[in-house]
């Protein structure tokens, strides 16, 4: 053990000797990090002046994001490892950070999201006055963001797991920050438990790999060997839990709605991608070939893509809907990863490159879009004081800017050209198409075709989901007075939304260069030498231009000059329509939900009251019930088993001293038996 510690000491010193200019910049980043932590504490100290601390902290957050972006650009494209010098140590381990193509991409994404979250915060936190303690919120938020930087930059397993745990803990604290509601507490605890289980599995996998490869740094880990299957499985499951892949997604629809919008934006936008990052960094770049694992990942990804969007369709809480849709997208990303691995195993480098690019590109896109959508939802929540689609509606006139941002985000989620969602979706389709064409085994071809079919169904469902969100949430007339009195969001909030919208549109229109950039990082392997550029043949800019121009022409030709008369919506001559006559979110989703009844456990019970009910109903109530099978059939029972076991064990502590003495004696007997056995 001593040698262990000493060895660590030695290689730390060695690493210290190999310092170069890049490390200087890294030290600068480290410095800012420390400084910001101090600032967070400061915020905590002056937390009683809410306004000031909010301003200061959101500024600091933006500063952090900007500085990290600057550091990214500053360090150019070379990759380097940085091992912390003596004082910055994890007890006995040096922290080792690694900056390369992959982490660069994710750091960039994180910085963007954090920047917009910071912009958003000042305006948003107003409506949480008195419900959350801003000092605590900001401290944990900064801790959260710093730890996420740490995770994507970490070069070895220990740094990774440390940062990972800090991230989980701080995010759980953030989820629970509005802890006066009971539901919020419950959600935070569910999330905390899920994430702890995930990290437990990860620890298991890491320890196992360490005992196999004798090293903590990811670079030395090789998953090609036969006995590396089990650690690979542990790691895969761990990451799946954290990412909210079916069937481990239970925590997600609780956590995201419960958290403040900024937090859920960051969590869904980036934290769920961190699992993907981990999968790429550890399993993909570790050279995983085991078909069992790959097929498992493929299967899980496909299922969660479908399951997520299906449940998103029938949600009535705006943020819950978004949460489920991020399950869908993470599923898509995992699916793409699995396709890449399959293709690599089947020796189809082109397909593998396409799929890999698709996965990473979709990470970026979904990160941006989903944080945009969550921010918009937050804006709606802060202005209309509800997220329930049954109470929303008619916001189009109240908050047009937010509506525009939300619509564009939703289009991108429906992967409609020319927005970025389409580009990455196209890549996934393309990879499947190619493997259906090129793959040697006919079974694989069939699977690819079936997956294409599934994906198109998922796409159509996504359209249904987001049309519902847009139409019921923003169009028509307000369904409640709260929505009636909504105001447009503050300038900062709008600015952050628009920033993200611009990013999405940009990534969509100039997808081809983005794709080239990503594919040249050649993320499939550790050595960035073997890089083959994936080409993106669609001329999206032309298409966009064409669409815009045609729209303008058509508008000018036809509608611009036409005489318009404003009248009320046609009411079949019954007189003024009540807002209840509009389609509610349930009724909009009903035909589709009916088709998928068996999956959703979809039940509608309607009761009609009044004498002669058929002709003169006095009261009609229709309620829709959806039961999540997993939760009711699997998770709750297993929880019950655990708590039952705990109760049973607690019976041992019965309070009688005679019993206790008997334990002592029986333990003695057992020990003697064991001793004789050994």
């Amino acid at each position: 053990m001593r040698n262990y510690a000493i060895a660590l000491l030695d290689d730390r010193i060695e690493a210290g000797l190999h310092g170069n200019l890049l490390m200087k910049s890294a030290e600068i980043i480290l410095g800012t990090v420390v400084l910001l932590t101090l600032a967070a504490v400061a915020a905590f100290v002056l937390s009683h002046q809410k306004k000031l601390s909010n301003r200061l902290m959101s500024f600091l957050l933006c500063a952090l994001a900007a500085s990290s972006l600057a550091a990214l650009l500053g360090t150019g494209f070379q990759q380097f490892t940085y091992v912390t010098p003596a004082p910055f140590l994890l007890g006995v381990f040096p922290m080792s950070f690694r900056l390369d193509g992959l982490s660069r991409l994710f750091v960039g994404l994180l910085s963007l999201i954090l920047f917009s979250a910071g912009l958003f915060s000042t305006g948003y936190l107003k409506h949480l006055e008195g419900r959350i303690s801003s000092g605590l919120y900001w401290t944990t938020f900064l801790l959260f963001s710093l730890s996420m930087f740490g995770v994507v930059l970490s070069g070895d397993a220990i740094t990774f797991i440390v940062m990972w745990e800090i991230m989980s803990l701080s995010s759980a604290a953030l989820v629970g920050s509005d802890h006066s509601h009971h539901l919020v507490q419950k959600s935070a605890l569910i999330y905390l438990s899920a994430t702890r289980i995930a990290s437990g599995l990860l620890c298991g996998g890491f320890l196992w790999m360490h005992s196999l490869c004798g090293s903590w740094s990811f670079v030395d880990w090789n998953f090609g060997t036969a006995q590396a299957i089990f650690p690979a499985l542990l790691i895969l499951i761990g990451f799946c839990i954290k990412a909210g892949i079916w069937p481990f997604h239970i925590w997600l629809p609780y956590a995201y709605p419960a958290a403040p919008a900024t937090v859920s934006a960051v969590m869904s936008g980036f934290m769920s991608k961190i699992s993907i990052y981990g999968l790429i960094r550890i399993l993909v770049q570790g050279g995983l070939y085991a078909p069992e694992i790959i097929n498992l990942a493929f299967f899980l990804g496909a299922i969660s893509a479908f399951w997520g969007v299906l449940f998103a369709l029938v949600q009535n809480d705006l943020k819950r809907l978004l949460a489920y849709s991020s399950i869908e997208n993470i599923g898509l990303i995992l699916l793409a990863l699995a396709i890449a691995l399959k293709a690599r195993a089947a020796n189809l480098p082109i397909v593998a490159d396409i799929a890999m690019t698709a996965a990473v590109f979709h990470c970026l896109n979904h990160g941006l879009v989903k944080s945009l959508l969550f921010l918009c939802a937050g804006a709606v929540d802060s202005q209309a004081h509800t997220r329930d689609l049954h109470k929303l509606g008619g916001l189009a006139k109240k908050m047009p800017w937010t509506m525009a941002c939300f619509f564009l985000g939703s289009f991108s989620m429906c992967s409609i050209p020319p927005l970025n969602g389409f580009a990455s979706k196209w890549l996934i389709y393309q990879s499947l198409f190619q493997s259906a064409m090129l793959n040697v085994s006919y079974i694989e071809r069939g699977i690819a075709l079936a997956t294409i079919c599934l994906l198109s169904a998922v796409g159509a469902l996504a359209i249904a989901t987001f049309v519902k969100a847009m139409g019921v949430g923003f169009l028509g007339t307000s369904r409640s007075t709260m929505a009636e009195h909504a105001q447009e969001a503050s300038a900062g909030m709008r600015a952050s939304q628009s920033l993200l919208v611009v990013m999405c549109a940009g990534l969509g229109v100039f997808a081809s260069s983005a794709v080239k950039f990503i594919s040249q990082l050649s993320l499939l392997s550790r050595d960035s030498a073997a890089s083959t550029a994936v080409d993106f043949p669609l001329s999206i800019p032309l298409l966009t231009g064409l669409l815009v121009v045609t729209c303008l022409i058509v508008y000018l030709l036809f509608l611009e000059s036409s005489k318009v008369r404003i009248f009320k919506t046609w009411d079949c001559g019954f007189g003024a329509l009540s807002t209840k006559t509009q389609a509610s979110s349930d009724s909009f989703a009903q035909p589709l939900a009916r088709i998928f009844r068996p999956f959703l456990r979809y039940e509608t019970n309607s009761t009609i009251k009044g004498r002669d009910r058929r002709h003169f109903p006095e009261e009609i109530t229709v309620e829709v019930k959806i039961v999540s099978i997993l939760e009711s059939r699997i998770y709750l029972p297993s929880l019950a088993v655990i708590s039952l076991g705990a109760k049973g064990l607690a019976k041992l502590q019965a309070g009688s001293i005679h019993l206790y003495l008997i334990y002592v004696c029986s333990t003695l007997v057992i020990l003697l038996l064991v001793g004789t056995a050994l």
Partner: protein
Amino acid sequence: MNGAELHLLRSCSHWVLFALSVVFVPPLCLGIIRKTKARLQNRIGPPLFQPLFDILKLCRKGETLSSTMSGTFRISTVVVFATMLVLAWMTPWLCFKPWSPNADLFLIVYLFALARVFTLLGALDSGSAFGAFGASREVTLGLLVEPALLLGLVALGIFCGSSDLRLVFAYSPLQSTGVSGAPGIWLLVGVSILLSSLVELSRMPVDDPTTHLELTMVHEAMVLEASGRNLALIEFAHALRMSILFGLSAQCFVHAAAAVWRMSPLTQGILNIAGIGLIAISVGVLESLSVKLQWRKVPEFVAYVVSMSLLAALVAAGSGVTKL
């Protein structure tokens, strides 16, 4: 005159032909369908170009908007119309087409989706119950039909080794005679595209466009609030969509034929247009013979379509030449 001029003339003629067919084919399709139905009901029926006249008439009218509407409604009309024009340009639904950019099949399908989304938003903007009815049904049909359409095109793509529809339809039958099941694939895909277009366009047996019982309508219910030029744009876009889809399936049938008997591009072109007409007639016949399916039965109908294109795709994947 030399090659360059000839080529120029050629492309000019293509442009002209294309423009003419974009303007006249869609209303003609509608007209033919109506005419057929009238004939089968022993009526004279309106002249073939009546739909065009209707649209022109609507263009002269002013429009009435609901007070609840935001700008979304009008924007959506414009976008739908524009998208349809772009689609008409990009999709190889006619075999005489001017130059167009990469008509990737996924892109085409998702451009259709774009049009659909805006139609839905327009329908929901007025806050009327009918619009919402129509929208939620349209969305359901979309879910059912999109896989069928996509898979059909994918089958062609796999068979011809590219996802670019230009290449797919430029794919000369001479190459494919060697490959087993070539006409079969074309035929299957043609049929599945035709049937899915029936669903997509919400015509019989899925929906009866001529009825005015709102509770059963899909498309008509969505455009209930539209009027005047708005309505004109919507109707024309709808017709254009119809002719594009019919054109695609006609193309498939032509290729299927070409895979058996060789024929010159000119004949192909003529057959293509004629095919669209024939399809329109047959749709008319179908509509006057069949009855509207019960709403709950629609998925079963669509299941046939999906299975057909899946079959085509599987055959294609099975027989497709493996390029490594």
